[in-house]
């Protein structure tokens, strides 16, 4: 194995006024040809800054203070801008996280790949090479695809184009910065396999940045774990995954949803919510031209029993959120019955709905968007009960109790949302919903926007509260491991319909529908069972 890349005691300074002095501190790592190194860490740990330093793409406000970067035997940090440019794309290439914005919207994708060849003096090959490259990343009909603009391609297709572009000049080093984070699980698995396969074929070195230990288990040869700009632990993948040493690594791995179904209470069939024949279609298109009709929800009947948690699982666009929003009338379906304790909620007026607002509540996905930034936390929690006629004093008492329940300090009442972290805000959102003392709680991806360690805390809290208050819950998630951990039964959705519904163990153990099997196959690192670790944090 030849040593491809060495980073030695690298320190990158943050601009003054940041929350810490260095983005990256005293960081050393190395990468051999033919190897995949996963750099793992939570948001803000400095993993992207490390990648950008290697590529010579640091923003002007960040400066390398000390350290060296050696690539193919040459020191990179002293190189002129032009010397760095001539290596970028040719010897080292990069793939980014967000495929929807990473391509120039005004250029045909073929031209964008050709440009990579042209700027390194290989423009003559472009006509032949572009379709070849598109075929190499398993894109159908490369010749006509090359003539398309990016907006015609799906996220997965765009990410393939990005990879084709990165591979155009057969670089020795590929840096992939969370390349699958924005993709659905099945697409993610395809891209992971593609990267693995191409890497093996070309003998490239790959530096793969991710926050997901499942992805690490799927793809890594070696792993480096980052926290607050430092590498806290690095070593072969098997070692780190199964016998982590550093407390932080242990904490992260312990927080990975283990996918084991928790012990389930016995559910007696006492229907709280029955969805029957609910349909929602969206129409796109203006006054001229054909209208596109999207059937967002159809064939999605289910029954939710008292005290039960039902998981709605599916990829983006599967209609799971739309279905959940139908229950609380944020979306109004055209057809069907929404029976809450036998009463159809669908035909009710806004006024007629009011009594049910107390009994059905919702927790939202984005902790940064789900709280009104101009309203104090106390007001956010009390305004619901007050709207429904509870006295201000009683609502306040209730809010204080709830803050305790979600493990926040009572002083939070007088503060504004921006003073809290994502996980804390999610708990405030939970308190706001619980203040109405609902019996049915709808949780729409409540942990997807959180870092993995925070995710675990919020999930534990949810499980605890559900037990304590005897809540019935509809839990929407795209993450199968999370679903397995918290749900009694699982409903799998695809293109607006529920294709499989059953007890969690049965859906995971003996999936009946082909799509369910595909989903389960796509769980990254499905062969890896996170080790049982004693809580060390």
């Amino acid at each position, binding site marked *: 194995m030849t040593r491809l890349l060495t980073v030695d005691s690298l320190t990158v300074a943050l*601009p003054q006024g940041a929350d810490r002095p260095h983005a990256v501190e005293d960081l050393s790592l190395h990468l051999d040809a033919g190897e995949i190194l996963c750099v793992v860490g939570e948001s803000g740990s400095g993993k992207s800054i490390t990648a950008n330093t290697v590529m010579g793409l640091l923003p002007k*406000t960040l400066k390398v203070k000390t350290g060296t970067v050696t690539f193919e035997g040459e020191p990179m940090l002293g190189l002129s801008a032009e010397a760095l440019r001539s290596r970028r794309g040719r010897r080292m290439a990069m793939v980014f996280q967000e495929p929807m914005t990473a391509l120039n919207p005004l250029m045909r994708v073929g031209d964008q790949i050709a440009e990579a060849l042209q700027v390194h003096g290989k423009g003559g090959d472009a006509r032949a090479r572009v379709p070849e490259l598109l075929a190499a990343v398993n894109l159908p009909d490369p010749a006509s695809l090359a003539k398309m603009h990016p907006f015609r391609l799906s996220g997965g297709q765009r990410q393939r184009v990005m990879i084709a572009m990165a591979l155009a000049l057969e670089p020795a080093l590929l840096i992939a910065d969370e390349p699958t984070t924005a993709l659905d699980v099945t697409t993610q698995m395809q891209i992971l396999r593609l990267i693995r396969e191409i890497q093996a074929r070309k003998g490239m070195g790959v530096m793969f940045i991710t926050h997901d230990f499942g992805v690490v288990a799927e793809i890594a040869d070696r792993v480096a774990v980052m926290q607050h700009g430092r590498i806290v632990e690095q070593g072969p993948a098997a070692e780190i995954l199964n016998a982590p040493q550093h407390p932080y690594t242990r904490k992260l791995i312990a927080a990975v949803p283990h996918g084991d179904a928790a012990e389930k209470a016995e559910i007696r069939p006492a229907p709280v919510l029955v969805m029957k024949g609910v349909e929602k279609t969206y129409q796109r298109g203006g006054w001229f031209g054909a209208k596109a009709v999207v059937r967002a929800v159809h064939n999605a009947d289910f029954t939710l029993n008292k005290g039960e948690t039902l998981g709605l699982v599916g990829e983006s666009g599967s209609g799971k959120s739309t279905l959940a929003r139908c229950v609380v009338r944020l979306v109004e379906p055209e057809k069907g019955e929404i029976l809450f304790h036998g009463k159809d909620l669908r035909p009710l007026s806004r006024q007629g*709905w009011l009594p049910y*607002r107390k009994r*059905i509540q*919702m927790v939202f996905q*984005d902790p940064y968007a*789900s709280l009104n930034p101009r309203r104090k936390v106390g007001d956010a929690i009390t305004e619901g009960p007050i709207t429904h006629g509870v006295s201000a004093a009683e609502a306040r008492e209730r809010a204080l109790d709830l803050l305790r329940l979600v493990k926040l300090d009572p002083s939070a009442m007088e503060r504004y949302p921006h003073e809290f972290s994502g996980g804390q805000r999610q708990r405030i959102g939970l308190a706001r919903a619980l203040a109405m003392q609902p019996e049915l709680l709808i949780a729409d991806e409540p942990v997807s926007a959180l870092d993995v360690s925070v995710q675990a805390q919020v999930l534990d809290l949810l499980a605890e509260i559900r037990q304590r208050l005897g809540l019935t819950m509809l839990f929407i998630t795209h993450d199968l491991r999370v679903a397995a951990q918290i749900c009694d039964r699982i409903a799998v959705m695809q293109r607006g319909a529920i294709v499989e519904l059953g007890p969690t163990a049965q859906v995971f153990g003996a999936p009946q529908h082909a799509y369910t099997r595909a989903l389960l196959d796509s769980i990254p690192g499905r062969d890896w069972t996170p080790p049982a670790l004693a809580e060390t944090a």
Partner: protein
Amino acid sequence: MKDFWRNFSRNRGAVVGLVVLLAVLILAVLAPVLYPGSPWDMAGMPFAPPGEDGMLLGTDSLGRDVAAGIAHGARVSLLVGAVSTVAALAIGVSLGAIAGYLGGIADDLVMRFTEFFQTIPSFVLAILLVAIFTPSIASIVFAIAVVSWPPVARVVRAEFLSLRSREFVQASEVLGKSRLSIVIGDILPNALSPIVVLSSLMVASAILLESALSFLGLGDPNMMSWGFLIGSGRSVIRMAWWMSVFPGVAIFLTVLSLNLVGEGLSDALNPRLARNRGGKP
């Protein structure tokens, strides 16, 4: 509030703008004290250059004091600027709110209507309106309001549209709050900062518009205004440059300071944007 002032005063131009604006405001308030009597009355000999005949900024062809005209003109400019902006805001905010919150057909209709008004050459329409309804403060304010609401409607609609689908608004829906309390309590406060910034720029352009109208002779015949002063100096610019220069400087300073204040407000209300302006990622 403390944060607001700190962010605002970090923009030095904005502070200068605020000071100039206050000065103009004081001038407008004190005009009857500084220059008692009508600015239309003869105060000295005709065409006195600045400094002569006791006239700080000279006199015009009828011997009227230019400085007095500017002081009294400040009242008209600020009044027209403020009132027509309030009127345009009233139209724009309500139309934009309806379009953005209700969506669907209401949105379509309002937006077509707004686009139509943006297509019409606004200054020509303003001239036409004032000419037809005979020049007066009321018709001028009306004309300026009619031509300047469309940008407000667009901004408010865009804000409402994006806020309406934000999760905290959906949370309020699920809590069972009424539509009115959602619009007033949740959406409007979060849409306020672009409206505030926009309105300071609108006052500036209303002042420019008023001065252009009175330059063309469409000012209120009973009110002294800056545009009128420049208009009356136009034909005699070869012999009395001061008649057009000083009122122009007054307009320039007022409009400039309003723009500076607008930038400062924008920085103070969107601190994240302001910091990004330096090129930080």
